[in-house]
């Protein structure tokens, strides 16, 4: 990462945290919603800075464009007066503080259990998960010119073709010196990469089935929501 990227990272990390804190501190519901925009939007920018532009765009579309608009709608529809204020009692504060501390502990223990040095530069995860021509580009760590080249791989995985496994694309040999202790996201090729062999590669099912199952779940939720909305109207009339 160049120094400009580091500055940008700290800027948006500060915005994320500042927004999150102001959600807790503010008492005005709409201002809270705006602080959430700041937090979620900055998180998306952090994803983009890390080169995960698909995740970043999804974050924007799902959370900022979708969920948050829904929240603001809910606030506007349920508010009894203009500029609703929320005053929480001391007990609420203590309880939520406790829950917050527990979550902080979980997150902190997860973060500290990771050997972050391994994710840096030549021995990095970036060069391990990369494949094909992409691997050459990221051999020396993250390369901004190749940023966000993740969409095709994701799309192919949904189409039952795992480029990392099925195509048996080799990992650059330089990165194999390190034993496989680097923390990686479950499902990433480092953990599951079969030994490269000349024999026929095994075919994996990809993510098509899980994706379809999730879609059907969403459909069920939609039908349920429509059903609930309808029955309510009928009983009123």
């Amino acid at each position, binding site marked *: 990462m*160049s*120094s*400009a*990227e580091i*500055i940008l990272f700290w800027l948006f990390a500060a915005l994320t945290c500042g927004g999150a804190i102001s959600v807790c501190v503010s008492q*005005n519901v*709409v*201002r809270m*919603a*705006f602080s959430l*925009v700041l937090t979620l*939007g900055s998180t998306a920018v952090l994803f983009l800075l890390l080169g995960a*532009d*698909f995740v*970043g*765009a*999804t974050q*924007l*579309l799902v959370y*900022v*464009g*979708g969920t*948050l*608009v829904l929240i*603001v*709608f809910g606030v*506007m529809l349920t508010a009894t007066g*203009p*500029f609703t204020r929320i005053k929480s009692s001391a007990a609420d504060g203590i309880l939520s503080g406790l829950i917050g501390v527990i979550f902080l502990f979980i997150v902190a223990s997860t973060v500290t259990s990771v050997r972050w040095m391994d994710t840096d530069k030549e021995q990095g995860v970036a060069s391990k998960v990369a494949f*094909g*021509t*992409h691997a050459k580009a990221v051999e020396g760590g993250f390369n*901004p*010119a190749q*940023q*966000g*080249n*993740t*969409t*095709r*791989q994701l*799309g*192919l995985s949904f*189409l*039952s*073709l795992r*480029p990392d496994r*099925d*195509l*048996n*694309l080799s990992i650059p040999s330089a990165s194999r010196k390190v034993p496989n202790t680097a923390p990686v996201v479950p499902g990433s090729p480092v953990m599951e990469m079969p030994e490269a062999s000349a024999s*026929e*590669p095994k*075919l994996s099912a990809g993510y098509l089935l899980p994706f379809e199952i999730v879609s059907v779940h969403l459909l069920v939720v939609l039908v349920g929501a429509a059903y609930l909305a309808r029955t309510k109207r009928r009983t009123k009339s």
Partner: protein
Amino acid sequence: MDTLLAANSLAEYLHTNGVPFFGQLDESTAMIVAAVVHVALVGAWFGLPAGLFIWAERKVSARIQDRLGPTRCGGKFGWLQSLADGIKLIQKEDLVPKDADGLMFRLAPYIVVVASFVGYIALPFSDGWAAMTLDVGLFLTLAVLSLEVLGVILAGYSSGSKWALFGAMREGAQMVSYEIPMAICALCPIITAGTLNLNEVALLQSGGAWNWNVLHPFNFFAFFVYFTCATASCKRAPFDLAEAESELVAGFLTEYSGFRWSLFFLAEYASMFLVSGLAVVLFLGGWDDGLGIITAIKTAFPDGLGNFIANVIGLKVFLIKSSVLVCVQIWVRWTLPRLRIDQVMTTCLKYLIPISCFLFAGTVAYPLVLAKMSGQTSIIGAPAGERLVQPGVIREIKRVKSTGITPAAVKVSAASPEGGQP
């Protein structure tokens, strides 16, 4: 893939080749300089069309209503009317109503402006001429465009006025609903092209008008549905319920004045141009001139000045096509009566969404059916096991890979035996 990464490589070029008098720039300086150049260029395209189209809107509406429109300011045709408007608006007092939530009221216009400005970063103006050629270009653009509604809702809510609140509620409901058919229709050409990268979508249509997506039987209808939804998402008539002056004064804009009011209008005209540009890239061939002239120049001069000139011509073609679409939006505004709010929602939820879903399914099935009919391998009716990629294909891919291959080419060679593209 060099041309596709051209826009990303400005920082790299500055870093490796340096600039006259300054020598090589270090990595972060090069990145900042490249960012400033891109933002300035995109900012120019963000601001200029707004000024131009506000003038066009005045002239076109005047013609339609049998008037002359602006005639004094800057010569016979009133060229400088938008500039005069701008100076007038900046001079006005920046009012914040007593009942308003001051901070939110002041911030809301900026959210709208930022949302439509960021939408421009993935839009290719010519081959490789985009601020960022992202693999998720269309997805990011649609995601960013969906943020505009937040600014509108905040503006309406924080104004502390009933008109503004009603306007914002209508606008929010409308924009959230119309996003769905718009996105589905924008996905139809994406399926035809097989990539979300806007630059590649346009590149695949180059070479002549017969390659344009709009001539695809399902994309043809998708284009009109997309354009209707895009008009609605820009809050243009006949969908401008949020600003219906006969019932809501000026909707969510009621309490705004001066500079902040003009920011909303800047964003509106900029996003009109943005959605039109997207329509051109997705359906109308992008920077392709329709006769294959630009492609011919590019083939004759693969790089250097000839290629640059071809790109400049392409830029002009793109701007002309987008401007024509913006002009259509302007005609529609001044010739069609405004719909009622229930009609607006009915049009979207009962007609446009089912139509767009049908078109989406049709676009998916079309190449498969075509392949089946022409006797090629198609997955229609085939057992599930055959739908997986054949091992032989993988061996082929590995062979090609050893000679050097891009991920895109992997995809093409992997997809074709599945009967993707006839």
